[in-house]
């Protein structure tokens, strides 16, 4: 018995020892594991630090190669004329000012009523809670109407020297001779020159300033005015309808093809002013037109505002191409509204280049109401230091078998913000629609910002829809390749950016493509090289 007990005790002891041993072993294992973990972590952390360091060096090298130029000489765009005018209404916005604009223009009563109704809407609406900050924009500091010392002429020689010289430097009269079928030139609030080639006038094409159109074609204006772009769309469309002045009216009769483009050029010279031109274009059944709009202003230290309105009516089987090259100065708030209604088998093509302004909010809209209607949007936005360019497009497919494409390119540099914002909506019953969007953003430095904010709303199942977006920097390999072919780094980068902008450039008439390339080169000078 005693033996058995002693055996048991010894068994127990052995077991105990075993357990102790195992626990010790486990503890050592755990310690080893813990030490292992610590060692591995330390190793990994060291590796990472080394990698981080080397990457940072690489990046610092790259950054060193870049030089920045704060303000660029924008050449002819920046030429300022003395601010002489015949009438300049006091700054701010109230009912009296609106009545005064209307009475200066000798407008019919219905127009004044529309203005006053729009003013009421403007007062009720707030600035948008999304997008760029508009708090700097103070309507009390902006003169809504400035009449230059000039009458509207149809001969450049009659236009006052100073104003004519500005347009000459911008190349407008020369362009008219060479490749335009008609030109309108607006200086501050009034159109100073308007002309259209005789053979088009004979075919019934009307191209005139909007003020004259209200007087000469009251029925048609009353029928169409404010029906495509409504005053209650947003705050600045309401403002536009309250104080609009100048702009163009184009009428293309049924079956008439305007084979060479028409152009309107909008120039703002006065500081602290607003330009609110209204453009209304009607292309009747089977007609076609290419309309070009150019905008610029010299740079001042006060805020200027551009809130134009564009209404386009594209009838059955008609085709309209609307091109804009905008190079407002960096003190401009460009809150422009553009809208097109496209009927059966009609085509609207938007070409849009946004280079200037401090803040832009511009989203041309295409409403496709007829079966087989098409919209094609091609846009480029180049945001430099101090600029916030919030641009994009809107397409609403309201009819079956409608088709839309949106292709945009955004470039930002030197702390500029380029924001792409869009809407593609396919409504109930709009079967068999196709839509394709492709937006690309290129950022030239780390201070800049490139955002893409698209919205897609599909309300039926029979759609073929695609959307793609890319954002990033210039590919080093592409630069290396071009440099290996004998180009300097600067040339290589400029070539890549021009290539990036190519889809827009190729849609423009040659002379404008050249101008756009020059604008890009100008913008790029400070950014890379």
């Amino acid at each position, binding site marked *: 018995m005693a033996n058995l007990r002693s055996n048991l005790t010894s068994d127990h002891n052995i077991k105990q020892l075993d357990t102790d041993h195992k626990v010790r072993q486990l503890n050592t294992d755990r310690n080893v594991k813990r030490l292992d973990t610590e060692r*591995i*972590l330390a190793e990994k952390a060291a590796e990472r630090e080394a990698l981080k360091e080397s990457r940072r060096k690489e990046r610092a090298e790259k950054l060193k190669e870049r030089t920045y130029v704060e303000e660029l000489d924008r050449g002819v765009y920046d030429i300022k004329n003395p601010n002489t005018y015949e009438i300049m209404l006091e700054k701010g916005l109230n009912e009296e000012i609106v009545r005064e604009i209307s009475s200066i223009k000798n407008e019919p009563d219905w127009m004044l009523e529309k203005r006053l109704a729009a003013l009421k809407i403007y007062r009720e609406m707030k600035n948008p809670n999304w997008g760029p900050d508009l708090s700097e924009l103070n309507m009390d500091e902006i003169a809504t109407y400035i009449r230059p010392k000039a009458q509207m002429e149809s001969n450049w020689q009659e236009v006052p020297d100073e104003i004519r010289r500005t347009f000459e430097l911008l190349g407008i009269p020369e362009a008219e001779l060479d490749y335009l079928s008609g030109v309108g030139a607006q200086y501050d609030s009034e159109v100073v020159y308007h002309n259209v080639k005789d053979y088009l006038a004979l075919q019934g094409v009307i191209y005139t300033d909007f003020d004259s159109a209200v007087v000469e074609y009251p029925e048609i204006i009353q029928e169409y005015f404010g029906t495509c772009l409504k005053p209650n769309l947003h705050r600045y469309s309401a403002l536009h309808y309250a104080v609009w002045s100048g702009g163009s009216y184009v009428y293309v009769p049924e079956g008439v093809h305007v084979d060479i483009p028409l152009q309107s050029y909008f120039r703002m010279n006065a500081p602290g002013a607003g330009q609110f031109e209204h453009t209304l274009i009607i292309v009747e059944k089977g007609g076609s037109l290419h309309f070009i709009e150019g905008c610029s202003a010299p740079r001042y230290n006060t805020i200027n505002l551009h809130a134009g309105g564009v209404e386009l009516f594209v009838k059955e089987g008609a085709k309209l191409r609307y091109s804009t090259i905008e190079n407002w100065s960096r003190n401009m708030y460009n809150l422009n509204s553009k809208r097109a209604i496209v009927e059966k088998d009609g085509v609207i093509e938007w070409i849009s280049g946004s280079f200037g302004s401090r803040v832009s909010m511009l989203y041309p809209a295409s409403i496709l109401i007829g079966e087989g209607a098409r919209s094609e949007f091609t846009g480029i936005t180049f945001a430099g230091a101090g600029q916030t360019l919030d641009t994009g497009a809107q397409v609403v497919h309201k009819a079956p078998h409608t088709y839309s494409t949106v292709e945009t390119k955004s470039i930002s540099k030197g702390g500029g913000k380029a924001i792409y914002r869009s809407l593609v909506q396919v409504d109930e019953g709009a079967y068999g629609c196709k839509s394709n969007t492709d937006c690309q*953003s290129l950022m030239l430095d780390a201070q800049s*910002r490139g955002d893409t904010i698209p919205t897609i*709303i599909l309300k039926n*199942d029979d759609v073929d829809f695609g959307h793609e*977006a890319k954002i990033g920097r210039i590919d080093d390999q592409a630069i290396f390749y071009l440099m290996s072919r004998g180009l300097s780094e600067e040339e290589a980068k400029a070539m890549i950016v021009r290539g990036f902008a190519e889809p827009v450039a190729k849609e423009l008439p040659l002379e404008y493509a050249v101008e756009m390339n020059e604008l890009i080169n100008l913008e790029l000078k400070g950014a890379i090289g």
Partner: protein
Amino acid sequence: MTNVKMKTKELRGNTLPAITWNWMDVNDVKIDLQNEQIIPYTAVQSVGTIDHDLKQTFYDLDHGISEEVMRMNDEQCNLANHWTISDSEPIEVRLPQSAENPLLVDQNQIIVPPLQKGTVVLYNYSEDDSRVERNSTILVDVENDAEVKVVLIQRLNENSVSNVSIVARVGDGARLNLATVELGAGNTVFHYMVDMEGFGAESHVKTAYLGSGNDHLDLFYHVRHIGEECISDIQVNGALMDHAVKKFRGTIDFVEGCSGSDGNEEEFTILLDDTVRSIAVPLLLAHEDDIVGNHAASAGQIDDEQLFYLMSRGLSRKESEGLIVESRMTPTFDQIPNEELRLDLRQEVHTRILRR
């Protein structure tokens, strides 16, 4: 009328990091949480206590669906789970709801210490036809060089409401894989927000959804690249039928300093009926040039050729459709470790398409 408790204001949440035109109604969504009481949840017992300090630091990052929804989650919490992951078997938690358990307000914390790997599956489903509500928060902290897979499966019935907020933080060289399956709930609000703080952190998201009946799905993702050389992708695949409405709103946010980062988001919707509504808002926000960001969204009907091929092999039209829809969801289903569950979900997709 007297017994209806009126809310003082409408709850809204999932607000876009960069808002856009208000009239489109895509900036935020309406949240349908009606419960204001504390009701116990008994189907699963609590497996841990919540680390409140940790929670606080997470809530500083983000408000989840909305501040108000997070507050309700705090006040009404009836299930708390806390896991510190070590290399181990996948953790699978089943969260059934029924007339007996109409409310699930769960708080989950998943902590993955350095170098550890793990998998957590949370499976929430209805056991009957009664209306149930879920308001869930899931905090995921992936420390340096760790890796975790989080799988969320939601199969509540069409009368129910599901609100899930995931807030995550990913450290140096760490990786978060998230797979979500949304097959249920008449009203689904999903919120995913990740801060990729570490060097070379990764976030990979795969979502599969099927919307039918009058389902309303809001799928919200906000991926922030903060550390250098972070990699992220979001892949959302699904199908819509009947009167279902889906909003996909994904943002890849490149914060200044995230040099060398790469972010992708891709959304693909199959539209099975004329009456569905598909909305997509894929955002890219870039505050850094040395990055690559891509997004692609597409939608359309099932490819005729694929359908023709399958039907020529003797399958019916609906069977073929089911097969094609399921194939789009396979990458997400493949993330589920439990094979039985995986098969079950596949079956459900088929059945629902066949039944339509």
